[in-house]
């Protein structure tokens, strides 16, 4: 297994499996994250799984106190990471983490402000774009950027489009976007550069909920199309 461990400042380190978007590599990241969740070490602050890397945030003071045999806290945590990697290789991801969430999306032009652009650019009809977008079961590779914003992949090559050259100042909450082989959902209104092809009435982030995000890294997601009337009904019921 090829990996690289480097400091992310003086209070975190990253284990990088190769700067790629790949389900196999992403599984490796999640297995490694699991090891630390099950057996946190003294001074561990938190782990952050991403596409092909896991970052460990730690408190150098506590780590130094508990691992005095190492010259630096970084060296101590790197050693823990290497041991965890050996453990992670043989571990199996639990089934619960592969939970499938079905997400309704309204592709009406009012919400899907870039849908026609994407269709034109990829020489497809709007209906074809919707069909291709709703076909696959996507993996939540990671959550980041905004609270509860899922990075989903991989999008069919036929829908792969670049980001907007000038990001929008405000993308509405719930907007579903495309960027390269990724699709994602703006969990909050935010500036953003992804091509917007629809909108979900579901709340991806709800601070009042004990579990504040709808999705977690490792979940599976499938989109299904709803009409405007259904969108409004769902909105009334959950907001």
């Amino acid at each position: 297994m090829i990996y690289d461990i480097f400091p992310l400042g003086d209070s975190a380190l990253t284990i990088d499996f190769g700067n790629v978007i790949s389900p196999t590599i992403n599984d490796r990241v999640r297995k490694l994250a699991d090891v630390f969740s099950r057996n946190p070490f003294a001074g561990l602050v938190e782990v952050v799984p991403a596409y092909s890397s896991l970052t460990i945030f730690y408190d150098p003071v506590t780590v130094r106190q508990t691992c005095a045999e190492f010259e630096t806290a970084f060296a101590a945590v790197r050693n823990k990471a290497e041991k965890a990697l050996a453990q992670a290789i043989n571990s199996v991801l639990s089934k619960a983490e592969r939970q499938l969430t079905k997400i309704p999306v309204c592709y009406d032009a009012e919400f899907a402000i870039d849908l026609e652009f994407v269709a034109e650019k990829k020489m497809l009809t709007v209906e074809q774009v919707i069909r291709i977008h709703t076909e696959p079961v996507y993996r939540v590779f990671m959550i980041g950027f905004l609270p509860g914003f899922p990075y989903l992949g991989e999008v069919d090559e036929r829908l792969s489009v670049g980001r907007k050259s000038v990001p929008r100042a405000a993308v509405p909450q719930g907007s579903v976007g495309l960027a390269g082989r990724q699709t994602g959902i703006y969990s909050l209104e935010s500036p953003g550069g992804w091509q917007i092809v629809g909108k979900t009435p579901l709340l991806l982030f709800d601070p009042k909920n004990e579990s504040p995000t709808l999705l977690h890294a490792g979940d599976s997601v499938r989109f299904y199309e709803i009409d405007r009337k259904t969108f409004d009904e769902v909105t009334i019921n959950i907001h």
Partner: protein
Amino acid sequence: MSLLFIQTGLLTTLQDLGRTGYRQLGINPNGAMDGRAARLLNVLLGNNENEGILEMHFPPPKILFETDAQIALGGADFSAGINSEPIENWRPIGVSKNSLLTFGAKKEGARLSLAVRGGFKIAKWLGSLSTNLKAKTGGFEGRALQKGDRLYLNREIPESRFAMRQRPLNYKISSHLIPNYSRSPKIRVMAGREWQNLTTESQNRFLRQSFFIRPDSDRMGFRLKGSPLQLGENVELVSSAVGFGTIQLLPDGELIILLADHQTTGGYPRIAHVVAADLSVLAQLGAGDQINFDLISLAEAERLILQFEKQLNRLKIGCRFKTYAEN
């Protein structure tokens, strides 16, 4: 048992040392920009160092104390006064009921911390009372405090505790513990993952030229003005975690230093990281202030962290004795 805001400040939020454990859900820590000021002031008042503080920008608010309290200010210096009588930073100050906390000229720094003995009475969200302005949650109703808001304290100072209500108290934080604030600091950094991808010329320029904080900077990040830097060849990165102090190279060659309200993940090259020991000095900079960078080793960065912790521990012991004597 409350503070009443009678004038709105530029941006006044409740912050502690941050909300950790939720970055994997995209929820970033937020927390005090000047973490050392927050810790020092809380320790000075006998609080847990993670107790919530008010972080104020200039112009600051005007606050009426509807209760007796003991407070301490630190970080920036906005010429604070209680009922027009000047008060000093880094010293416990007794404030009696119906006193007015006002401010004058901006003398130093950009963010003033106000700690109160016993802390503010605020419901925590995910274990922290830091304000998440973007998600409109945490802190005081998920927003900045404004005119008319009442902020309650956890504890009243009992009538019998006369010594505590005196102003000012006869001890303060010694100067060697206070961050070395400056409007043109030398900020120490460690090399980031993509440091090696900068051209040698750009590496040298990063370390030799002065950068200036651009006006479009905020708690999410400082945008820097300087001559643009270049990578030897283009680097395409998939998103991964970033942190408070990460210095990213933007596509136009400019730099951004991520701060307390930064996003949890990013995909721009990480050319350097401000060391933890200098984040408080960094936090006190504002638009137009000048930065120079100094590259140090990881071992040195860790040594600086440990050195401060040792000093802070001594302060904790001293303050525990003081606050015990007062009780």
